[in-house]
């Protein structure tokens, strides 16, 4: 067993894990934050995207011990306070989800996209940047709309959104 010291959504945890434990297993099974999903086990689908030290990471690709000392944000910790993060609100407003399974990963990737590429994202950029996130319900069209709208909405609330990480 190894001890991982990790800050998740602003709270610090010290968790004993076996060495082969994946970050997503620590998040889901040890911390019981089940908003981060596992869709494929093969790093293709992106349902497990979280932010590790402010960068989007597929948490099924990272060992828990590699996240020792890291600050992690999951979908549960994205919004500051009781309301929604602007990107969450945009997914609802634009019907950017159906079954909801891919949605946490989509939103975490989208926020990372804005952090890297800014608030004005054209459709082509959004579609390229979402390559690592698979959805099977929506056909992507409304997801692309939601990400664009969410990116613009983050301009005003950007500080709050970043502060949450």
């Amino acid at each position, binding site marked *: 067993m190894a001890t991982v010291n990790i800050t998740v959504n602003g709270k610090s945890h010290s968790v004993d894990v*076996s060495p082969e434990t994946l970050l997503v297993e620590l998040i889901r099974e040890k911390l019981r934050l089940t*908003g*981060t999903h596992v869709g494929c086990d093969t790093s293709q689908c992106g349902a497990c995207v979280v932010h590790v030290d402010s960068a989007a990471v597929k948490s099924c690709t990272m060992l828990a011990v590699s996240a020792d000392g890291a600050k992690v944000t999951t979908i*549960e910790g994205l919004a500051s306070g009781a309301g929604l993060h602007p990107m969450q609100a945009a997914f609802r407003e634009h019907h950017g989800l159906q*079954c909801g*399974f891919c949605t946490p990963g989509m939103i975490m990737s989208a926020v990372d996209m804005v952090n890297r590429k800014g608030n004005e994202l054209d459709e082509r950029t959004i579609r390229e940047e979402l390559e690592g996130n698979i959805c099977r*319900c929506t056909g992507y069209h409304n997801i692309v709309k939601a990400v664009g709208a969410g990116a613009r909405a983050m301009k005003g609330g950007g500080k709050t959104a970043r502060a949450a990480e």
Partner: protein
Amino acid sequence: MSATGIGAAVRRKEDQRFITGTGNYTSDISRPGEVRAYFVRSPHAHATIKKVDTKAAEKMPGVVAVLTGADLAGDKIGGLICGWAVSSKDGSPMKAGAHPAIAVDKVRCVGDQVALVLAETLGQARDAAEKVKVEYGVLPSVVDPAKTQASGAPQIHDVAPNNTIYDWHLGDKAATDAAFASAKHVTKLDIVNNRLVPNAMEPRAAIAEYDQGNDSLTLWNTSQNPHVARLVISAFIGMAPEHKLRVIAPDVGGGFGSKIFIYPEEVVALWACAAREAAGEMGLGPFGGLSHRCAWPRSRHACGACDRRQP
């Protein structure tokens, strides 16, 4: 268009939990004392099972039980059914082969279930699964549907000669023949239907729980129709009377029809809880009295594993 009137967009109530990570999908559920399940699967499309040796696996850390098709057959748990019966044009019923939830004498597709490993953690179950020794007698396989009925093609189910389950005709043959005979021009065309592979984002998963006090079972699964699942698992598979079986479908991460079916893993998870509990193999396992909870966290197996065009 007013904000609340006809034509206004209606925001879905369920979105709130899906966008905040507080949905409740099957594999998000945890029950106290649950053990984790991992299946040993066939690497062959067609093979006899000569021997399944579970001894080494049973001694691996954290292992609660290793169960085989023989155990399942011994407990008289029925096989999976085909819910849609089709008769051939000569009126004979379809020739559906047996479909045990764990293969007994023969595997018939890549990924067919051969054994179940139950352990305290999924990692332990997976490690132990590698120690299950299965001796196969590899048989010739047939993977192209167009070749399955050719002379000399490998025979998959004894009950279905030439691998033909039914020869289905619809319509009025005489009238159709007459129409073609009197047509001015006839175009001949081979039509091959696309193969459909519903591939939802949420893999299949199941959690089964046996309540010894009420002698009742509960199954949480990724199902599009829990009521039918209860009927089939009760009346056809014989797991428990309907009033002693509850099937709960929580949030489902896509299905597209693929989650209409009852899958072998769900049956096996229920059986592992109930039957093996009765046999004392699970009841007092590593978690004491409550290891009669079996969580099969996920698998993508059923989606196209036998389809050479799908990775």
